[in-house]
């Protein structure tokens, strides 16, 4: 119930007229990073959720409209991205430099 569903993949079954989906992938050195820990922080930088990226480096959150920060933590390093989200699909990429 509190465990994350499989990350990434098709959006079938997700109602994009009501859900605010934030999804994307984590990259490092030109390749997706599998098994990275990605956390969603709210506008006050407080933890809201965390998932582990799929073998293709993908992550997905179900949030609410507003400003969010996505932060990735992996054995190879850290990266983050701030983005505004609206109802519907919001896509982003997080690079670990």
């Amino acid at each position, binding site marked *: *119930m*509190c*465990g*994350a*569903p499989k990350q990434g993949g098709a959006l079938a079954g*997700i*109602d994009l007229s*009501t*859900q*605010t989906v934030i999804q994307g992938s984590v990259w490092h050195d030109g390749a997706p990073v599998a*098994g990275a*820990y990605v*956390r*969603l922080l*709210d506008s*006050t930088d*407080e*933890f*809201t*959720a*965390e*998932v*582990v990226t799929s073998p293709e480096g993908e992550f*997905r*959150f*179900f*949030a*609410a409209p507003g400003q969010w920060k996505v932060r990735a*933590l*992996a*054995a190879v390093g850290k990266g983050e991205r701030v983005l505004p989200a609206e109802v519907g699909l919001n896509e982003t990429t997080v690079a670990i430099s």
Partner: protein
Amino acid sequence: MSRTDVLVTVDWVQEHLGQPGIVLVEVDEDTSAYDGGHLEGAVKFDWKKDLQDPLRRDYLDKSAFEALLSSRGIANDDTVVLYGGNNNWFAAYAYWYFKIYGHGDVKLMDGGRKKWELDGRPLSKDAVERPATSYRAAEPDLSIRAFRDEVVAAIGSKNLVDVRSPDEFSGKILAPAHLPQEQSQKAGHVPTAINIPWSKAANEDGTFKSDEQLAALYAEQGYDESKPTIAYCRIGERSSHTWFVLRELLGKTDVKNYDGSWVEYGSLVGVPIEK
């Protein structure tokens, strides 16, 4: 009781892999994590399949808990070391469970799977077989479990600690944001609850903050040392993490986990809610 009685480091676990008398248990909601690689010799508990009553909303009764532990080859005198994903949420829930049924020596691995993986430590895909035991559980210790009526009665009188994220506390979202936001219960929190998210007690690598940092955290968030405490979240696993911090690390007495949590409270007819 001190930190070293209830918490072991990843270094300690790696040094003690395979040692008789120590049983590692991985606790996840999603067992694909375990199946894709686990600590050598660790057995698995599936949070949903193994740790919930198959019919009612409740934890396992005594005989079912005994059967589970016996089938995993866990003996009453074993040292059980729990770890898992989600920053040890479900491992902390299982820890609380082991305490409910009176297991003698149970510990959490600090940082759980995340810390282990970020350190690049070895994982095994080998099947783990342990000879079955005849585990005997104690009668459930209800001094660490809160029920709904007690929560309603605690409004304005006990520390009610809501450990969900600020956006769940305020009712902006209904579930942690890795889950679809379609839930039947009302949004908000129990009146007079203080919001101290579980995540404030953990470092980014999933390990617990120091005792000094934890003591300061609860003091500055309005936690009243003179009152009993009930912690809750959405389904009772994140609040187990905070229950562990308050009772096992900080040594506070009379701390209960309300495992019914918001899924139950937010569905009750006629109870007060604040947003």
